């Protein structure tokens, strides 16, 4: 969303739900998503004039928040190793009202593909913004998007069957 000329609070109020929702779908952890997103927005506020003038301030926030999530996951892995504890990479339970099969299929995607597909369809960013938010080229973003769609189609079937037809689920292996 274009943010130049609007104040931080207004922009935050309009963008935060979308950002935190997408981060939840990517990371699977509501608390982690919440904290990473709050952190990212607070960094945006720290340098608001600069961020507001960007082509996609929201893309910038996604990028910072995704880095933050990765950093926390890394730290958690290190801590778990030090404490000889196992960590669940991603909480298994889908939120209520979410199709568990779809949630599971998205969760099973490789990280990059999951990020791309969620930013494109859940966050509704344009491909160019997706690439910018991930710090990758547009070509790489497109390729990951194609791969993700193909993998989801294999897992979920090309289209939702009518309720009476049982879903045939192929092995998720690539």
């Amino acid at each position, binding site marked *: 969303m274009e943010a130049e000329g609007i104040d*931080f609070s207004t922009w*935050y109020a309009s963008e935060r739900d979308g950002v935190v*929702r997408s981060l939840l779908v990517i990371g699977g952890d509501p608390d982690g998503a919440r*904290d990473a997103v709050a952190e990212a927005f607070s960094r945006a506020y*720290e340098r608001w004039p600069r961020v507001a003038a960007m082509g996609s301030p929201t893309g910038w926030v996604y990028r*910072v928040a995704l880095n933050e999530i990765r950093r926390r996951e890394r*730290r958690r892995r290190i801590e778990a*190793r030090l404490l000889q504890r196992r960590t669940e990479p991603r909480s298994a339970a889908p939120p209520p009202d979410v199709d568990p099969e779809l949630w599971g299929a998205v969760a099973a995607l490789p990280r990059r593909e999951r990020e791309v597909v969620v930013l494109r369809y859940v966050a509704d960013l344009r491909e160019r913004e997706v690439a910018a938010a991930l710090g990758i080229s547009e070509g790489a973003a497109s390729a990951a998007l194609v791969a993700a769609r193909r993998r*989801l189609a294999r897992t979920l079937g090309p289209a939702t069957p009518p309720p009476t037809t049982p879903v045939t689920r192929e092995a998720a292996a690539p």
Partner: protein
Amino acid sequence: MTTIEDRLRDLARAVTPPPLPGANAVMLRARQRRRRRRGGITALLVVAGTGAGVASRGLRSDDGDTVRIAPLSPADDGSGGWEEVPSGGGSGDPGDPGAWEEVPSDGGSGSPGGSEVWDEAPSGPTGPADGSPGQWDEAPATTGGDVDTVVVPDVMGLTVAEGRYALEEVGFLVQVDGNDDDSARVVGQDPAPGTTATVGAVVSLRGA
């Protein structure tokens, strides 16, 4: 027929966003970080260099406050970042005296969860410290008093994970070329160590 794309878009409608703090709380957090950074950068880099992943530890900042560094607290409950309590909170800041008592009043579209205030109540100021006036307004370790410009730390020779951590701590975005394993060594960095760059800029590391 419902396409994969449609189903994914439906996710956006189905997933209830976890409630976020109000705008005021987010702004307060930014101010706290700025203050914390002022005293904590050197210590953070040292900690980053050791790769320690232990629970939160207190660091002495230069004005004598004990500052809890949020990122080192276990993040698995997700609340670690909200627990920073400056022991001399607000004592030296005439312009922002009631920060801790303030309930963030958010004018935004309420989240369905309804929780607009911090659910972890900060334990509040423990008493006045030596308060230097205007400390909230001071720039962190920057050059020329411009908050948006920071010296690029030297992360050459550290592991990629450590380098990334150190750079992100001071506000850079990190891109790793070459070997991007956490345990790879940083053999190149651009912009070069010791130069200044704007906060939020991308620092490229080369891993090997």
